[in-house]
């Protein structure tokens, strides 16, 4: 128990100290912040696809709703950013419920199609509703969030702001998964027929996982808008939905660490592959292909922490037995 606490303290200390190493390298901090936002968005997708077994190819839609709603509310109505972000995530959640009502009846390819359409509709809306979203010119000068006298206006400050939010959201995700609610969501993924027979209202839990998922991804969208300070429709295309899905598959889904690894590796990886110039996408694509072929269950399973623990545990117990004998 004490050992476990020590581990958490060390991880927390490392994360808190990390930006100090990169003082003056504001660009790297921006990259790190983007990665953390993706961790939130992909964790949201994981709740839907990884845990309840429903695919979404339209999560860029929730990301966009979060980003635009928070930007517009804070600029046009002057609502404090922290509240506009929460409101934006709430609106994304409401849209998720609206799609999930019909979508809860669909599976696999049909669900993929309806979510793609949703993403495209949102994209077309933000691209053409000029009076509200400023169309392709985008929205600029999006204010930074603040809490009292604390204004998160530099990448370093934003990093700490995000660190708290990521920690809370991941904690919540973990709590949901290990609860009656989470088990019902997993049951729906495992066997719809048996879930129904054992007292689980499958439709409601499908809708709930859509809603939870959209809250995470919508909030990520809002955090993105206020980090970059500028949004335009290009950031919210189908391509973005596919990036979320790629991150999830790369890291490993239905897993606490999977989305974290997937989002961070892909964000930083894409960046550092830029030195390859024209060959960037070629190398990127080949790497993805290799990973999908050789580690289909995601990077997290290269070093499966639980297995590793078991192996270590076995060794120590064997040693103890030897000592006793």
């Amino acid at each position, binding site marked *: 128990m004490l050992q476990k606490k020590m581990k958490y303290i060390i991880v927390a200390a490392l994360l808190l100290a990390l930006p100090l190493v990169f003082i003056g390298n504001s660009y790297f901090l921006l990259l790190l912040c983007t990665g953390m936002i993706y961790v939130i968005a992909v964790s949201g997708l994981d709740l839907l696809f990884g845990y309840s077994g429903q695919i979404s190819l339209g999560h860029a839609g929730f990301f966009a709703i979060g980003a635009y709603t928070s930007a517009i509310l804070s600029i046009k109505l002057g609502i404090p950013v922290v509240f506009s972000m929460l409101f934006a995530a709430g609106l994304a959640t409401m849209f998720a419920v609206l799609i999930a009502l019909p979508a809860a009846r669909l599976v696999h390819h049909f669900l993929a199609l309806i979510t793609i359409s949703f993403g495209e509709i949102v994209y077309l809306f933000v691209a053409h509703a000029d009076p509200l979203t400023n169309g392709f010119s985008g929205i600029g000068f999006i204010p930074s969030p603040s809490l009292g006298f604390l204004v998160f206006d530099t990448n370093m400050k934003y990093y700490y702001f995000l660190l708290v939010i990521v920690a809370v959201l991941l904690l919540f995700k973990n709590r949901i998964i290990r609860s*009656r609610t989470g*088990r019902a969501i997993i049951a729906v993924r495992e066997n719809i027929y048996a879930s129904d027979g054992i007292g689980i209202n499958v439709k409601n839990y499908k809708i709930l996982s859509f809603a939870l998922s959209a809250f995470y991804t919508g909030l990520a969208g809002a955090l993105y808008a206020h980090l970059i300070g500028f949004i335009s429709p290009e950031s919210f295309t189908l391509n973005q939905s596919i990036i979320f899905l790629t991150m999830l598959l790369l890291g490993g889904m239905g897993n606490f660490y999977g989305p974290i690894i997937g989002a961070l590796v892909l964000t930083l990886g894409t960046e550092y592959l830029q030195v390859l110039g024209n060959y960037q996408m070629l190398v990127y694509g080949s790497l993805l292909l290799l990973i999908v072929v050789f580690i289909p269950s995601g990077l997290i399973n290269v070093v499966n922490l639980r297995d590793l623990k078991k192996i270590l545990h076995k060794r120590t117990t064997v040693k103890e037995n030897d000592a006793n004998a």
Partner: protein
Amino acid sequence: MLKIQDVVIKFGGLCAVNEVSMDVEPHSITALIGPNGAGKTTLFNIISGVLSPLSGDILFAGKSIKGYRPYMINKAGIARTYQNINLFSNITVVENVMIGQHCRRNSNLFQTLFRTTSQVREEREIREKAMEILDFLGLAEFSDFPAKSLSYGNQRKLEIARALASTPQVLLLDEPAAGMNTTEKGELMDLIRQIQATGVTILIVEHDMKLVMSLAEQVHVMNYGRKIAQGQPYEVQNNKDVIEAYLGTE
């Protein structure tokens, strides 16, 4: 306890269940037998709400449960197992039984997010009860294994464990002995008697005649969607129609 009244269901032109009626007495073990394709599993699917009958009614404890969705029927107090095993196969054995308690527990999302004392207590109770049930069925040693890693016989037992977790008044067992060897069948019989002793009413579909005849107090026989006989085991065994249905006529 459970009253099936003139139930009819058709698939296309085929009348899979044709005006079948039966009474299941409280705390009894009642068996439903018949050749393959007689409509036994279809009748189970109607009782558990998977299929909706064309006409007729199903009364549970005096109330009609016709048109209820399966999850509502489970909540009302009827649990079932499946002929083709339907477990949550990638998660652990104990989690399967924890999920079985779903409709008898009530902690919500808000309590979960903030780990309220009542939620923490309920979680502990859910796990303890699941372990108790696994112990009862002799599966406790496998509690942390994925359900799919169990042997076929143990997977069938786990289906019963999951069904029991929802504290049913009526338990529907669909061919629980399929694929079991003689020793396992003997254990299963003891187990079913023990479940009955806790006050659960049992309705069982089974092909193994030895098991049916030694367990059941009342036997109903179906053939081609119709009920052709009912009675105590020895009565049914000597019934002309039943012998004909199983062996054919000369």
